């Protein structure tokens, strides 16, 4: 009996950078075997971007790659060579899923388009996670994560009060496309389980980001008004802000959504009379007078430790939490106690802390199975196991520059 939900599922994974690998990372977490096909000519960009372990560059030392390729295998091929494409097609016969996030049309040009692959394996599931989709006037556009957030309206809606449109801190459309990609692949596997048929999925990173913009889009649709940038403030709830705490650039987020929470906040601040202050008596008034409210709360938080504020307010039933940085997260007792932070032995960088699996399953406990692969670590093993190649044959192909 299967121990993990996707046990026995094999993915031939041509994805690179972040969006695609984030999709197959979720499948790896769920038990699928991910065979990452890396190019000898164009190493994955995430192998070449800092941080490197102990600041020493090297393709196996990049934290970015090692974070998003946990639990996968790596084979190295020269994808410009027809012999390599033939080998890839042989591997497709043994795969359930083929995934890529190249620009539209690249898989076809490589000789790995869906029409060809479905003839090799009729029930194959293939997903292409391109920037703008496989059709339409922008299909050839380069789709990076940060510009996708600009294009999808996320920058326009984000920003401080009365300020310009702002960036959003991370290349969010990338992992978001990965999450939608994981959903699409898993549901296509479910579709195959019910009907026996495979399918092709054309996913647009631009559109997956747009799917998360309903508040702005529907506001425009219903009122003709564009979203108004107002920092962390909420359309209904007040207070809702990051407040300055004691210490260098330390902040605590506080949100109040109900009357009970409002009274609890006033009590916890030692100012119970505020609850009935005519400026703040109702949710609508608090929203209307939120600048005054923000000042009062800042006066209370600014000389306190952010964790002290958090504990006081949470004990009183009010949503509060420090604004966490990378160190806070890596060392957080809660995340460590839950087993979220993982450390796996990597042949070159040793044991490093990584973000692990953001869910727990009672019947099929998921765990990260291995650190990210060294570049080409599994070329020989995969070809021997799946295609029955001898070591000699693999060596010859490596000498010929077809494999590495």
């Amino acid at each position, binding site marked *: 009996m299967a121990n993990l939900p996707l046990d026995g599922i094999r993915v031939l994974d041509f994805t690179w950078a972040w969006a695609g690998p984030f999709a197959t990372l979720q499948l790896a977490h769920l038990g699928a075997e991910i065979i990452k096909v890396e190019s000898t000519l164009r190493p994955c960009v995430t192998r070449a971007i800092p941080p490197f372990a102990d600041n020493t560059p090297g393709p196996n030392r990049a934290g970015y790659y090692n974070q998003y390729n946990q639990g996968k295998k790596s084979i190295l091929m020269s994808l410009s060579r027809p012999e390599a494409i033939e080998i890839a097609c042989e591997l497709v016969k043994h795969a359930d899923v083929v995934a890529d996030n190249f620009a539209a049309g690249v898989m076809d040009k490589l000789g790995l388009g869906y029409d060809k692959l479905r003839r090799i394996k009729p029930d194959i599931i293939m997903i292409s996670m391109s920037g703008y989709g496989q059709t339409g006037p922008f299909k050839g556009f380069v789709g990076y994560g940060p510009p996708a957030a600009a*294009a999808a309206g996320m920058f326009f809606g984000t920003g401080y009060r009365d300020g310009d449109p702002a960036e959003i801190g991370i290349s969010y459309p990338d992992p978001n496309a990965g*999450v939608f990609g994981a959903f699409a692949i898993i*549901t296509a596997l479910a579709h195959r389980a019910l009907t026996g048929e495979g*399918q092709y999925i054309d996913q647009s990173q631009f559109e997956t980001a747009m*799917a998360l913009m*309903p508040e702005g889009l529907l506001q425009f*649709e219903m009122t003709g008004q564009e979203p108004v940038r107002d920092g962390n403030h909420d359309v209904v709830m007040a207070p809702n*802000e*990051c407040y300055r705490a004691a210490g260098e650039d330390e902040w605590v987020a506080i949100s109040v959504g109900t009357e009970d929470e409002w009274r609890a906040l006033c009590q916890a601040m030692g100012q119970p009379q505020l609850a009935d202050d005519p400026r703040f008596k109702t949710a609508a008034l608090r929203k209307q007078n939120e600048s005054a409210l923000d000042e009062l709360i800042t006066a209370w938080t600014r000389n306190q430790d952010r964790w002290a504020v958090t504990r006081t307010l949470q004990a009183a039933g009010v949503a509060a*939490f420090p604004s966490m940085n990378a160190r806070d997260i890596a060392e957080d007792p809660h995340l460590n106690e839950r087993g979220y932070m993982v450390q796996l032995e990597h042949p070159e960088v040793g044991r490093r802390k990584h973000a692990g699996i953001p869910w727990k399953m009672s019947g099929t406990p998921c765990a990260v199975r291995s650190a990210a692969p060294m570049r080409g670590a599994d070329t020989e093993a995969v070809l021997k196991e799946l295609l029955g190649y001898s070591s000699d044959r693999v060596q010859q192909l490596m000498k010929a520059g077809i494999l590495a």
Partner: protein
Amino acid sequence: MERPNKSPFAAIKVVECGQGISAAFGAKMLADIGAEVIKVEPPGGDLTRRRGPFPNNQPDPEKSGIFIYLNTNKRGVVADLKRPEGRDLLHKLLERADILIHNVPPPERAAQGLISQELCAKFPRLIVTSISMFGDSGPYADYKGYELTASNAGGWANLSPGASPYPELPPLKCFGSQCDFQGGAHAAFTSMAAWLHRLKSGKGQAIDVSEQEAIAAMLEMNLVHYTYAQRVASRLGQRLLGPWFIADAADGKIFCITAEEHQWKALVELMGNPEWANEEIFRDRLSRGANQDALKALMSEWISQWKVQDLYQAAQKARVPFAPINTMKDLFENPQLLERNFFAEVEQPGVGKLKVPGMPSKYGATPWAIRRPAPSLGQHSEEVFCTELGVSGENLKALRSAGVV
């Protein structure tokens, strides 16, 4: 307006309860591919009914834009889970269900009959997926949270907007309800993975999705900057790579970025090979990042001579990944989205025709459609409780007058 459900997933029965966005979004993803979702609302209706946006800014619980977006393709019932009669109705629904998705916070679950282990014991084939801020276990399990809490707890807001020159301004959350959406999306794909497992094993299980953890897994290379090289990234400071900034074109704003050398070379050519581009301080992407201010000043004059759309098209033609800072209006008129029929139309009673974001993954075989509008409060209570669960008309009447449904 109802369309037939032609999906192979029509046989999957999902029950959704809780409040707000995360569980509703997860269940929406399943409803969109064809699962039959029943949304259980508390007697006062879901919180999102009061959030809007509303037509002409007139609040009306049957006209909330976010509620409509999240709940098309679902049927809706009302049951007060804080009362035993309401919990009985929920359990009747769960007897026939495959998946339960909810976001009731851990400390409130006992009172609503939603303890995962108990549900799994009672309904061994059921997949019980809960979404919470901090997960079901650990020191913060009982902590409260909203969207802003999750954005900060997961480490995202602390990095945003990025390259900020304003240390006096706080960490900044992204527009909308992104952390809640992620909680829902993670619940959707893990639930379907568990459903695949059940096909083989016959067994359901409990899934615990933490929004804090989902967001902390999305911090790009920022978490590993610390664990690999002891650098703590911040929303302040400057971008590592250049060019990377928002600039003013003649008629609007455009985001200018090149991440790889060949893109920079193409951009230099597009700019007409200005002499300054050969300066030593711009020799590679890291140097250009370190000298971002000088670079932006030099590029700005050139950018200001372009209209946004013209520069976007010209840059993309040269494979330079610029993008406009699109407004909502721009997006409804976007030629790419129009050509791909991205927006779907909902005929919502009382509101009329609305365009909403459609399916962002185009499946070759699994059908997708808006089959029905979002339910009005309690619209399907009678259909579901009486016709399908066999509650008598009299009993329903009694439950209604007692305020349970």
